[in-house]
């Protein structure tokens, strides 16, 4: 316990007497944390929006008009049990007409129809659009000659949405891009913080040499540096979180009042975000100190 107090004192002394490198390290960490703090919500919002779009992709199963009620309910159960199918919704011809009417600008077009041309159908939503093929195959497995045959005689046609393929490709690319940006950001932050810490310790390698000379053990030398790293990480993160908070209150919050878009973005909450940033900065800075010292200690 008294040793811990001693280590704390040592760390405090080092911070006070090496103000310039310490401040440089704190500023670097603040800037890095700020960058991460802004980009993480943006990335996560983009990601969730992409998922949102993808989840709306669906499969339409058109039935013959003479499909019986038993056929329809059997088929509904059957589709519902296929792997990766999220929901199955039956749309009767009358419902389809209502939906069409709602979408049309010129409602008079419908008046020219003598009868309802729309067939009964199922709207099948999937858990992930990448499973489109497998669900399609389950609905109409290939027969002996290799041609797909619908599982029920009531099925007229199975159709994927017009732009399903493009949307799938675009959103897939966006997801990969987001992942790449996130990884690059993580690497850049680690290197930036690690290097700054290394520089500030580099200036004090002679000090480490002297400590070893009078018989200090490796951990006796290392603990104050690790604690110093924790403190530098904490201060840097606090500065960044302060700026983030100001930004949230003055820019993001007023915007979300005016635009439903910003408000509806499904992104990481502010509390967990700042907690993760503070802990992350402290851990990286402390590890950076400990690892850098390892080199000077010549283990």
């Amino acid at each position: 316990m008294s040793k811990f107090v001693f280590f704390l004192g040592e760390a405090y002394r080092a911070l006070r007497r090496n103000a310039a490198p310490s401040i440089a390290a704190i500023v670097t960490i603040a800037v890095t944390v700020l960058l991460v703090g802004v980009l993480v919500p943006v990335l996560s919002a983009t990601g969730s929006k992409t998922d949102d779009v993808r989840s709306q992709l669906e499969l339409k199963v058109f039935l013959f008009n003479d499909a019986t009620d038993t056929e329809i309910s059997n088929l509904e159960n059957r589709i519902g049990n296929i792997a990766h199918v999220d929901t199955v919704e039956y749309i009767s011809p009358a419902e389809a007409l209502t939906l069409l009417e709602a979408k049309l600008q010129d409602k008079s077009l419908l008046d020219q129809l003598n009868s309802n041309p729309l067939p009964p159908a199922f709207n099948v939503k999937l858990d992930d659009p990448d499973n489109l093929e497998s669900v399609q195959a389950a609905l109409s497995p290939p027969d002996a000659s290799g041609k797909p045959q619908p599982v029920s005689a009531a099925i007229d046609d199975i159709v994927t949405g017009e732009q399903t393929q493009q949307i799938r490709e675009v959103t897939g690319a966006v997801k990969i891009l987001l992942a790449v940006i996130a990884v690059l950001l993580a690497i850049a932050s680690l290197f930036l913080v690690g290097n700054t810490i290394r520089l500030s310790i580099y200036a004090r390698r002679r000090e480490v040499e002297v400590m070893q000379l009078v018989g200090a053990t490796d951990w006796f030398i290392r603990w104050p540096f690790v604690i110093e790293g924790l403190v530098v990480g904490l201060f840097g993160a606090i500065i960044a979180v302060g700026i983030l908070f100001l930004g949230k209150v003055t820019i993001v919050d007023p915007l979300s009042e005016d635009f439903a878009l910003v408000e509806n973005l499904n992104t990481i909450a502010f509390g967990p975000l700042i907690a993760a940033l503070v802990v992350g900065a402290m851990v990286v800075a402390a590890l950076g100190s400990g690892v850098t010292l390892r080199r000077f200690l010549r283990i």
Partner: protein
Amino acid sequence: MPEQQHLRPQKPPIVELKDATVVYPGGHVGLERASIKIDRGEFVFLVGPTGCGKSTFIKLLLRDIEPASGSVVVAGKDINDMSRSKVPQLRRRIGTVFQDFKLLQNRTVYDNVAYALKVTGSPRSEIRRQVPEILKMVGLGAKIHNYPDELSGGEQQRVSVARAFVSHPPLLLADEPTGNLDPETSIGIMQLLYRINRAGTTVVVVTHDREMVDKMRRRVIQLYDGRVIRDQAAGLYATDESTSEFGARMRDELGVVIDDDRDDTATVL
């Protein structure tokens, strides 16, 4: 019937180098089959030109480097069998003083000396008692709270002597302790080392200070090219020199390098 003699159990020598050879990466030979034995309580000067192996000797005893062959025994223990984690314990038992003082610049005089006690886990009360005492002994009682850069060279060296001696180690190594100091200040430092030796600590001083060695008349070990070429009780810095030896020594001391032709001429003259 002869009386049974009650002798004190013989303590092993504090330092014993047996046929130690040190080869640096790159092939430079630091020491070559050097055997040196130093008993407890001795005061020894280690002399010789630059690069003769004096600093290698000190590094060897601190286990900063390890010999390629031969053994290094400190207080009866072969320190090369020691695991790395035990090295700090070895260093706590050896006080060191260097030409460049090696003080912690961001600590006060008090904290520099106290650090040597803190590493051993000494209780606070002990530190508070011993540090001012030792600083008074080296004559720095009034500058306890100054930082090293506020002190003169001689004062800084006194701090480093105080740090080396505060835990009363059995062995104190001084690597050119007066190398950066003027003669008057040097005498003060040597007096301190002498006093420490009188208190029972073995003191080994590596030096170029000819006058000091000649005046103090202690054991002198002379190294040349990594070999022990002289080991003399109550010796002088150098034995009687021929003209060419004198020339070589002067060149070494003044750091003058002369090519061979001129050297020959000088000898003839």
